[in-house]
């Protein structure tokens, strides 16, 4: 099976735009509890999708999502508390600070190969949590409390979360369908080959790392507004990294819609159902993660696509092989081969 370059189509973008507008409008209609739930899900989606861009498309398996959630959250919170800026400015600052951190760390991080990158990012997440705990200006271990009347809540916060999640989805679509995405996947699949074909490896990885960090930082700011009280054990907890990995891996790493499914499955199936059973929830999350990488390493979404296609059978009249790369978002094209064909 030779993968062909996926042409940019108009309908995924249109669907994204439509659902964004609909969700945005829902912000004025839904009741308070649903909005709060929506904000949580959308933030998880943004963080999972940001991880997906980095790990699924770029092959950089990060365990450092928590560091950028914390950076964004604390940047927005500290600006609000210490300078009295209005919240839109504080939100705008969050991705900038997160990107600056990513840029600063990238010099070291992007030198690391494979598993070393994962461990390096994990070290950053833990180090940042320890740093914040010792940083009195940021409230130390007890954290900071945001001025309640200065932060958006309810419908406004929901709409903000919709925009953040939509940005994450748009970025994933771009990574999936653009020439940039193909080059990124080429680096993931075979770095020497990609470099040999003329791809600037470091620059492409940076171009994946920076927006991914920015989105995670933005989500961190929204989470800070939702929590109101933020502490090193809340926004800087490694469980953000865990959830990003878990949700994406369950849904389907390197797919556009997989993380969407993963967020729904993990949040509804586990986190919410087992809120009173924290230990049991942790057990199931651990087992689920192991079971998925062991038995369905591609995740649930590609599995569903394949099953659906088998049930529906080949489309009559087209003569196209069933396994051909079509509209379905099954797997990411093998970047190196695609790129090699492009170049040839």
């Amino acid at each position, binding site marked *: 099976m030779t993968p062909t370059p996926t042409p940019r189509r108009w309908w995924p973008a249109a669907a994204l735009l439509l659902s964004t507008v609909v969700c945005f409008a829902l912000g004025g209609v839904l009741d308070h509890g649903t909005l709060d739930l929506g904000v949580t899900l959308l933030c998880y989606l943004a963080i999972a999708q940001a991880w997906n861009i980095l*790990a699924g498309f770029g*092959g950089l*398996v990060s*365990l450092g999502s928590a560091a950028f959630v914390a950076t964004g959250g604390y940047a927005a919170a500290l600006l609000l508390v210490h300078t009295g800026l209005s919240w839109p400015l504080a939100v705008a600052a969050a991705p900038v600070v997160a990107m600056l951190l990513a840029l600063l760390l990238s*010099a*070291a*991080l992007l*030198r*690391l*190969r*494979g*598993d*070393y990158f*994962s*461990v*390096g990012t*994990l*070290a*950053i997440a*833990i*180090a940042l949590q*320890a*740093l914040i*705990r*010792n940083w009195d200006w940021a409230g130390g271990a007890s954290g900071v409390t945001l001025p309640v009347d200065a932060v958006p809540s309810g419908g406004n916060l929901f709409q903000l979360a919709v925009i953040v999640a939509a940005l994450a989805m748009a970025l994933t679509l771009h990574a999936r369908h653009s020439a940039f995405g193909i080059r990124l996947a080429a680096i993931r699949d075979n770095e020497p080959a990609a470099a040999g074909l003329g791809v600037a490896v470091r620059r492409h990885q940076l171009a994946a790392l920076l927006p991914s960090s920015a989105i995670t930082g933005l989500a961190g700011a929204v989470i800070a507004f939702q929590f109101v009280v933020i502490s090193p054990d809340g926004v800087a907890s*490694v469980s953000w990294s*865990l959830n990003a*990995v878990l949700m994406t*891996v369950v849904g389907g790493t390197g797919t556009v819609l997989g993380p969407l499914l993963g967020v729904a499955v993990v949040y509804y199936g586990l986190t919410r159902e087992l809120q009173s059973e924290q*230990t*049991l929830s*942790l*057990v199931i*999350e*651990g*087992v*689920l*993660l*192991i079971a998925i*990488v*062991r038995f369905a*390493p591609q995740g649930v979404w590609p599995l569903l696509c394949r099953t659906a296609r088998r049930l529906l059978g080949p489309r009559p009249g087209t003569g196209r092989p069933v396994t051909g790369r079509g509209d379905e978002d099954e797997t990411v094209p093998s970047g190196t081969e695609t790129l090699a064909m492009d170049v040839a």
Partner: protein
Amino acid sequence: MSLDVLAAGILAGGLYALIGLGISLVFGVLGLMNLAHGELVIGGAYLASLLVVDAGWDPLAALPLAMAGMALIAYPLQRYLLTPLLRGSKSAPLVATFGLSLLAQALFQAAFGTHPKALPASYADTGLSVLGVRVQTVYVIAFGLTVVLCAGTHLILTRTRAGSALRAASADPDTAAVLGIDVDRVYAMTFAGAAALAAAGGVLTGVAQSFTPSSGLPLLLTGFAVMALAGIGSVGGVLAAGVALGVLQSVSVSLFGGGWRDVVVYLAFFLVLAVRPQGLFRKAYAG
């Protein structure tokens, strides 16, 4: 800078080396970053606590049993879960050990609760005076035991048939398999050995300080820091790296205060990774 601080750092470094040795062994031979290593350490401490707290044993008497217990748990994990994953996609084993780490934390919580535990021993809080330098007895014992275990590991790797098989599997698993070495078994034995070393570190950590189900993560990162400093494949390098890290931590705590002990380790770890990803003492096990 007083000598006490230096001595405390050197001795604490022994414990770090013991934790780092297992991580380094698994990564060097299997190419597996084991994110559940911290839980192997804490698991050893909890296993020992069954004998020490509930049956009144001395922690040092419980130590061999804890080592054997963790090795028995680790062997099938590697043989039937992680080794098959090593042949699959690149990040699958890492993600699986991340899942194992969570699972183990949850199981510790369910079995032992979340309150801190410690292993009581007569030498837990007493001090020794050596040439006018005050040191904690438990760290002296830990350091001595670490040196013994490091020497033992080194001898097994370099002087036994099993060690030769391990170095062969590490250097080139395919050729080793062709030559009749059961690579799957070697991998599982290596992982079990690393778990036993981790358990020994866990028991000693448990005597020196208290532990909770989530204590594994900082220990894991300390172990990674040791491995990053040492590079892969040199037992002596691991010991030196552990001591260097212990001294660094002890000195920075005396300069900046206790809150910074972990921050310094993580920053050192990150800097070493960034500047010299291959470590300071790199050598192949085969070499």
